[in-house]
């Protein structure tokens, strides 16, 4: 009796796995490898435990309703103290909004150019250069935001309309930082739009611009959505730029010209101060951290779900 087909790689590997000959130390090695993989799971559990155990301590003193009530201020420095996190969340939304206003058009333009216009050589040269923007240490962007954008450009340009610490200078640098994420992830999505769609459009007489924006762009929209979600997650988690340039005054404002404070900015401020362990100041760090963790988690999972949907559509 002949085999219907020769065994493929998987079958071969499976057959070999069953053979009796084994070196005894190998099981130990596999155990060690499993432990390596377990480190990542343990990290997740540790993060959740650390954040939420101290956050629970915080909520024993400050009620949930007080924390999330949009009417309450974030005032932790002097009495009467108040822990309305909405002011910090709005600060985070402020820089997210303005950095996206800057990065989204530029990032998508770069993605369209690299995917639909650029020659292969140009793309090979430009893409790593763009990626470099994401590799610049954020403390460097923080320095530029404060000394160059705010001090040398915005203040002379806008005078008294803008405060020295302002969300705009931070947002410009955040925008620069996330530009490569938007460009790169969107470009991948556009590059995987099937050629047939483009050729059909060209066949009907569409120009390159029309193919790019009316055919490829809509077809890649879920990948672009994922890019946006990842970029937002990156912005709301970024600390140094906002801590240095955006100020440290919690402020219910979406204006780019005012001084604000973000969730991460507050967390760094607590770390730099000397809040004693167990005080509300100290535990508020973990409550804000837990909220930040949840927000980035939802955004990252959202991006993964969107990407998976998008893959199913074309493969």
């Amino acid at each position, binding site marked *: 009796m002949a085999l219907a087909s020769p065994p493929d790689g998987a079958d*071969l*590997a499976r057959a070999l796995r069953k053979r009796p000959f*084994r*070196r005894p130390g*190998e099981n130990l*090695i*596999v155990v060690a*490898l*499993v432990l*390596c*993989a377990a480190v*990542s*799971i343990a*990290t*997740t559990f*540790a*993060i959740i435990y*650390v*954040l939420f155990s101290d956050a629970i301590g915080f909520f024993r003193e400050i009620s949930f309703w007080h924390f999330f009530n949009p009417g309450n201020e974030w005032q932790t420095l002097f009495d009467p103290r108040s822990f309305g996190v909405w002011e910090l969340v709005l600060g985070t939304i402020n820089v997210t909004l303005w950095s996206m206003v800057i990065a989204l058009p*530029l990032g998508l*333009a*770069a993605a369209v*150019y*690299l995917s639909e*216009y650029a020659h292969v050589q140009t793309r090979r040269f*430009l893409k*790593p*250069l*763009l990626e470099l923007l994401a*590799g610049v*240490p*954020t*403390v*460097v962007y*923080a*320095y*530029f935001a*404060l000394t160059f954008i705010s001090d040398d450009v915005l203040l002379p340009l806008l005078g008294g309309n803008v405060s020295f610490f302002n969300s705009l200078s931070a947002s410009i640098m955040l925008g*620069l930082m996330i530009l490569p994420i938007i*460009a790169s992830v969107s470009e991948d999505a556009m590059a995987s739009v099937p050629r047939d769609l483009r050729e059909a459009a060209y066949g009907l007489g569409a*120009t*390159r*611009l029309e193919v790019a924006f009316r055919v490829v762009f809509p077809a890649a929209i879920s990948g672009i959505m994922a890019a946006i979600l990842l970029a937002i*997650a990156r912005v709301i*988690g*970024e*600390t*140094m730029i906002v801590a240095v340039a955006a100020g440290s005054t919690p402020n219910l404002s979406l204006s780019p010209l005012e001084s604000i404070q973000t969730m*991460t900015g507050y*967390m760094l401020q607590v*770390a*730099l101060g000397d809040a004693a*362990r167990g005080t509300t100041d100290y535990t508020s760090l*973990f409550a804000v*951290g837990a909220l*930040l*963790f949840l927000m*980035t988690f939802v955004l*990252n999972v959202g991006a*993964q779900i969107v990407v998976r949907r998008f893959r199913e559509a074309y493969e």
Partner: protein
Amino acid sequence: MSAAETTTTPATVTLQAEGSVARRQAWSRTSRWILLAATLLGLVVLVILGIDNAIVGIPSLDWDFLSNYPSRFAERAGIRSSILGSVWVLVFTVIFAIPVAVGAAVWMEEFAPQNAILTTVRLNIANLAGVPSIIYGILGLAVFVRLMELGPSILAGALTLALMILPMTVITSVEAINQVAPSIREGSLALGATRWQTVWNHVLPGAMPGILTGTILAVARAAGETAALIMIGAFTFIAFDPALSFGGLLDSFTTLPIQVYNWTIRPQPEFRANAAAGIIVLMIAVIGLNALALVVRDRLRRN
């Protein structure tokens, strides 16, 4: 008589479009340059910032700046302790993170059963890669500094950064291992090698360029990290060299990005030049590491 002779003189046919078609084509031609300009804008801004920074920073950048400890006086302050701190922390970050990351990647690609556990591990690593660095700082503060009582030491800093770069190192290692051709594994197994012998002698050497590239890029990221280290309490004045001993691992430390941050937030303008000079050193290191990653990948791939 052929058909050609019967036709009248043909009108000159041009492909010049007219009316709305011409307008659409003109828009399309213009769009190339608009989009290229938008693509380059970010890079242009970075170059302008770099030039401005060089003008401010280069006058302060001399041997004294590299070899002096930090100081209250801007003209005497230097980055000796922060460079040594950075190098020391990064060496131990790599020692802690890389074996674990490669081990996890080998298990996921070569040994793990294809079941829900593997899917969970994969999803978990993808999510950890998106956790903000300041959260890793809180983790380091609670676990390494407080629970394990390491204090804000080099060891605590290296462990914190190791956890931070672990997800991205695992992801690049998985990709590198994935790219080793299955035929190499099958050949080794067919000749009687065990699975671990196959991994050690064939898969890992084949994946080495990718793993090394990923490692260097992860180090570049850790080298610029500030928030996580401030979180564990590394924002301190350090005027001594880290001791080259196991006890020295428990010394407090500072790093180059922390020193740059320190000078950036000083109100006195003299420190601005120090921050700019520190940034030049930091950027040379980060760009150097990125360039090294590209070279390593090309060189090892060719061999």
